[in-house]
């Protein structure tokens, strides 16, 4: 149990360590068919591209979002195979938050 909790904390720290990254992941989860450039994503989320670049790189490193080059442009899309992992982790993060903040 302790090991599982440790893994959970570690994953939450790695995956959901900033509000902007959480927002990006939730956006991809809600829109799994989205395929767009960094500029396109930034426009859709109303965030300056420069502010979003690092978050996009991180979610690609974590394997939640895929990157590929099409006609010289990098495009990003959600890794549908990881949807369940992401959902489970988000639920766990919400549960932990509820435990931390007593009603």
């Amino acid at each position, binding site marked *: 149990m302790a090991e599982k909790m440790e893994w959970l904390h570690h994953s939450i720290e790695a995956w959901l360590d900033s509000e902007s990254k959480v927002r990006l992941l939730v956006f991809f989860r809600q829109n799994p068919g989205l395929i767009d450039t960094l500029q396109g994503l930034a426009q859709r989320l109303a965030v300056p591209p420069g502010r979003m670049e690092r978050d996009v790189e991180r979610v690609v490193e974590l394997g939640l979002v895929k990157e*590929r080059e099409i006609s010289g442009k990098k495009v990003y899309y959600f890794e549908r195979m990881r949807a369940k992992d992401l959902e489970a982790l988000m639920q766990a993060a919400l549960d932990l938050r509820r435990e931390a903040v007593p009603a």
Partner: protein
Amino acid sequence: MSIRTSQLGPLESARMSTGIHGMDTMIGGGVLAGDSTLVAGSPGTGKTTMGLQFLAAGVRAKEPGVFVSFEYLPQQIYRDAETKGWPVRAWEEAGLYRLVCTSPEVLLSEGGEGLSILDENLREVQAKRLVIDSTSQFEMYEGGPAKLRHELVGLMNHLRLQGITTFLTHEITQIVGPTVTVSSWGLEFLVDNVVMLRYVELDGEMQKAMNILKFRGGDHDRKFRVLKTTSRGIFIEAPFDRVENISTGSARREMAERLSELV
């Protein structure tokens, strides 16, 4: 867009139901498999719903489909489809449906193995039907109108050779008016069928009319018919009765009808 000889099959001639209540009977049972249909209309006339309905009919007929959106986010389309009773998320999970949201440039550009993003998605669900919503976004294509037209001719041929039946929506900016321009780059000439959706001002209210302008699959109903958008999708109903000037958007009852009201 590259075409591989292994992808080439015989041109299809079977009819495919559009799933749009009342439309199939106007066109002899459905569109010809592999043909392209342009659904052009003013904002809010039901173009996107028609596209969703066409793919829903495909799912019921075990003909998987791909919906490409340039404007709406998938979450908006899931919501709108689900209110009509089409569980698009569940169909995606079952591998019968694919919703793609991107830009025209990304959609048509070649990725790995000479396949475009569109090709990959069509292949992954073994699609028989495709909706592109909306081709108005192609007007912002970086290569200009001549290159765009060339690309679209290639795309239409490519889809036809793969036996994929396509609905393309296109926005007409005029709400009502005596003249209507479908597209500045002749999209209506590149497709097999053209369906027009229009607002008609009649008896003090805005009604919707549907008319088939062009249909390659044989004779077709040429009447302006009443279009109703309901919680179960679009219904094409009876022709406008004793009404003239529908194509101008400002329809009026025929003279005899008006006289009978006066007497």
